[in-house]
């Protein structure tokens, strides 16, 4: 069964303290892996798509990387405004073309 897990469940960082969030996936074939940011009470906001192992994408203080079994979202020198829940999602070859499986998310808090 296609599955997406994320760790840690929650993460508290001091402002400027760099860290990484993990997304592990089990799928028969990967069409794409996605990262979203979700603020409380709002819909998720698309950040990145990664298509193949070794690929990297960057946006401001965020950098996403992909291997054959997992993805990391690296946060460099985070600021309080980076506080949010970060969702990972996977589109698998085995599923309907339009189906994307989301992980439970990592709740990030950046303390000033």
């Amino acid at each position, binding site marked *: 069964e296609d599955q*997406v897990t994320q760790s840690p*469940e929650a993460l508290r960082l001091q402002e400027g303290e760099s860290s990484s969030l993990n997304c592990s996936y089990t799928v028969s074939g990967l*069409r*794409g892996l*996605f990262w*979203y940011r979700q603020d409380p*009470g*709002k*819909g*998720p*906001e*698309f950040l990145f*798509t990664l*298509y193949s192992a070794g690929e990297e994408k960057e946006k401001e203080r965020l950098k996403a990387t992909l291997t054959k079994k997992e993805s990391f979202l690296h946060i460099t020198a985070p600021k309080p405004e980076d506080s949010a829940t970060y*969702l990972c*999602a996977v*589109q698998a070859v085995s599923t*309907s073309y*339009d*189906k*994307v*499986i*989301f*992980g*439970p*998310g990592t709740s990030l808090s950046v303390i000033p």
Partner: protein
Amino acid sequence: SQTIHQWPATLVQPVGSPLSLECTVEGTSNPNLYWYRQAAGRGLQLLFYSVGIGQISSEVPQNLSASRPQDRQFILSSKKLLLSDSGFYLCAWTFTPRVGYTFGSGTRLTVV
């Protein structure tokens, strides 16, 4: 530019009452439309998706239904709500999931 509207923002309904949530997209034609539900601490669960008018695919057997009466309108309905229907409902659109979804602002449904 494309925008997605979803309403209402919050809703409190008694068990056994009907439900109708509406989602509309502006600035694009023939989008793929999706309804997701997000329970606290869990990933987004795909409920329905539609690739065209009158074309609805259901992912989870339940007492909810969806309809797409117009190209840019997607409606989520229930004849009789259950307590387990409580959650955060999100509408989304895309042309292909590989470029990411655009989500609406969500509806917080509480069934009492």
